[in-house]
């Protein structure tokens, strides 16, 4: 039997070629996003109402000090020149100097960033470690209207948990665990124990949201035709759930995880504040309050870059899991 020419043509595939176009597209998007981020952070100082240097040094600062700082920051040069210099400096890893401390911004950020990531990364992992098993188990158990009560209490609990903002969780954890029970330290970074509360505070809400999403995705996947095909092969239900359904359910969930990680990094701003954690979050807040704009600028840049990087990594991970995602969507 001869298979239709057109059919063969349609189905002939060049996997390598598709991967390259996917990578090209993804890199292009990353570069454009990075450019938007860099430009926005550059413009930030320009857009600040009034004179940023005077704002930082206070109204009582001597005019010649202000002038010299302005010159030092190059704020009196033409805009384009400033922009090009900013870009050039970025490539050498130079983010300028703090107006207040006059220390290199890059050094401060690198130091603080580690503190932030040491909270965000464990919190991210913990979130998935909780959400996937719980979501999958709930989906399998409450499928097709079974165990209505379990379903109701699961959805209810997860809504309640996800309604609690991380800074409220933080405060509550401090009040109950640290102050009342006196088990774990309430603030500062001092040994493994000091990580427990901030990481928990960061991951409780996202874990509640994620497990609900995993459950919904899993329910949809369990009703898909290909799961019925798997059942028609009379495989064990473990294999059907874990090998056939789970990867499909996780792909959709994973797509959201980039945004979630970025939000988590940003969420550390609040949590660090409560736990007096030496991270980028407390730096950014204090620098906004003290109007130390070069420091704010650098922190925004780094936060944004982390978010973009996380999203790109997630897209690559999804593409590896689900080959379909390399086609379409520009």
């Amino acid at each position: 039997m001869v298979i239709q020419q057109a059919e063969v043509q349609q189905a002939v595939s060049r996997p390598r070629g598709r991967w390259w176009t996917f990578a090209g597209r993804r890199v292009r998007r990353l570069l454009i996003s990075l450019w938007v981020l860099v430009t926005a952070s550059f413009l930030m100082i320009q857009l600040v109402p009034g004179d940023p240097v005077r704002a930082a040094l206070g109204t009582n600062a001597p005019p010649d000090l202000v002038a010299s700082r302005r010159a030092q920051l190059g704020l009196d040069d033409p805009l384009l020149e400033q922009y090009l210099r900013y870009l050039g400096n970025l490539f050498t890893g130079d983010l300028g100097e703090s107006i207040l401390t006059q220390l290199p911004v890059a050094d401060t950020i690198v130091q603080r960033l580690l503190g932030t990531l040491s909270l965000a990364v464990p919190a991210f992992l913990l979130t998935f470690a909780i959400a996937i098993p719980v979501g999958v188990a709930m989906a399998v158990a409450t499928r097709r209207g079974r165990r209505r009560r379990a379903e109701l209490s699961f959805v209810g609990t997860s809504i309640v948990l996800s309604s609690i903002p991380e800074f409220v969780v933080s405060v509550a954890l401090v009040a109950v665990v640290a102050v009342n029970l006196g088990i774990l330290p309430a603030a500062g970074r001092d040994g493994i124990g000091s990580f427990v509360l901030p990481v928990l505070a960061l991951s409780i809400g996202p874990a509640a949201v994620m497990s609900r999403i995993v459950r919904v995705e899993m329910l949809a996947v369990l009703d898909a035709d290909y799961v019925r095909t798997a059942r028609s092969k009379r495989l064990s239900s473990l294999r059907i759930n874990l090998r056939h359904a789970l990867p499909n359910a996780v792909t959709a969930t994973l797509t959201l995880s980039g945004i979630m990680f970025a939000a988590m990094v940003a969420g550390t701003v609040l949590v660090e504040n409560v736990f007096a954690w030496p991270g980028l979050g407390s730096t950014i807040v204090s620098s906004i309050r003290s109007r130390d704009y070069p420091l704010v600028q650098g922190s925004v840049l780094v936060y944004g870059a982390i978010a973009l990087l996380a999203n790109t990594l997630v897209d690559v991970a999804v593409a590896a899991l689900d080959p379909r995602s390399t086609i379409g969507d520009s």
Partner: protein
Amino acid sequence: MRRHWPQVLRTPVGIVGIALLTILLLLAVLAPLLWGDRATATDTGDILSGPSSQHWAGTDDLGRDIFFRTLVATRLSIVLTLLATALGVGLGLLLGLAPLLLPRRLGRIMVAFLNVLLGFPSLLMVLFLAVILGVSTSSAVLAIGVAIASPFARLVHTLGAGIAERDYVAAARISGVNPVRVIVRHVLPNVAEPLVVNATVTASSVLLAFGGLSFLGIGVQPPQYDWGRLMQDGLGSIYTNPLAALLPGIAFVVTGLAFNLTGEAAAGTFGAKSRSRSRWTSPAAPVTVRPSGSGDEEHARVADVLDVRDLHVSFPGPEGPISPVRGVSLTLRTGEAVGVVGESGSGKSMTALAVAQLLEEPGRVTAERLTFCETDLQAGARSDHDALLGTSLAVVFQDPMSSLNPVMRIGSQLVEAARRHQGLTRQEASDRAVDRLRAVHLADPERRARQHPHEFSGGMRQRTMIAMGLMGTPRLIVADEPTTALDMTVQRQVLDLLQETRRDHGTAILLISHDVSVVSSVCDRVLVMYAGRIVEDLPSADLRTKARHPYTRALIGAVPDMATDLDAPLTTIPGQPVDPRNVPDGCAYAARCPLATERCRQDDPVLVADAIGSVACWHADVALDVRIEEEAR
């Protein structure tokens, strides 16, 4: 929209959500009027004290009552939340709908820009904007509004673009309705519902964002205060009076819950739809025993592949069980091909799933007899028959696009069953998979086995499904509309492949289709289904000449073939198919039947066998003579 709010109120979650919202709104209006003074009254003699009978939640550093401050702060917290939400939703609507109106290229650029913005967490956007706009309450409103606008715009755009692709929007554009009016009239009303739900949930995240900003000292500025501010103030005295920070925290949680619960209830997570599903009472459908025909012994020997007697399928429904299949009997011998035809909803697919033991909870299958390869499938647990069914029964479904697992290689999907049921090693199984792909005429099977389903065309996927069945020693292939989604030429190839399989392996085929000509090109016998019953059973060669049931004849007359008389109108069947929720007494076809008499409306005709086949009709003898007139008018 309006129609749906009462439904929100009917779910317990919705009631709690709306009640909480109402209380909060009342508090927002009344609290500053009633307790404004007590919240600002300073008491220097009693600063930073713990809870007492005078100050339930203690006092702050100026000796002000924290309990009343929390109540009074409701107004500012909620007003700011609503303002920022309204701003963000409004902006989001504009940004999200604009790409639908702009020229194609400009729209595309805008969507790309939205995608870039979406890559940044909203808290970062808020901080960024707070820096540019300066630290003040109004700039915080602006910053949060702008920050939530991009995700909302993205949602508006996704939903809107989905609706804009609908044919009714195309139809409106073709009839010259102007683009803005198309959006207002067709797109907006159809996306309003999910948008309102999302806006409600967004409000809860705005509340938190605002609280967060104030908590960090860059939101609401003193002397104004909202819950975030109060929490920050309370944090200093967390060791002496934890309630000072926790009370505003509780206010956050309650308000966030109010928004989230209302949103969830409106979104239908707890909706009425799922509630009716649980009202499943009656455990089993009554089994109507029908007189069975000739000697059972002989019958079983002939029907060596499949023997189904009086099969019922039922689902729980709000008013008692619904039975889409009501007493189907059918038999299949080795190498026999039997077709099932009928309108959609007549129960063809349910019969197929029941036979293949693939019907899931809450569906129930009962039968007087259900044997496959002389094994009683109703005896023992379902898993007892896994090996038999996994090697001897194959299924092909209608939609080739979704019946293979998109994330697994074709080869892996083929080998699974053989590894489990036939105990093949990995190598043996994958060799066999390649061999089977070759057997269904796929070129370059080694490479194909390593590919994923999306690299296959529809026809190739259906072949793959058949190859999957051929991994074992298939005695029966159940194919439910296997070619409906395929092109004519590809359909021909798939049907030929089924024939070939039958010829080479003696595999019996149960072929379900709505297309009489497809069925008669493959099958020896045709079963005609109507309202969950078989109404006629006859050799496919006799279909056009000897069909006696009025329904069978109408089905044939309604479909043009290459010999249809071009001057005569096609036969039409008036009325609608029977709804399985509401099966009439007597003959189910009576309401649409040109030959129906009083007897038909009262007594249900039974399937009676004779020389040609079997037919369930009181007037089968008349039907053959009467030329069914068309009666569309």
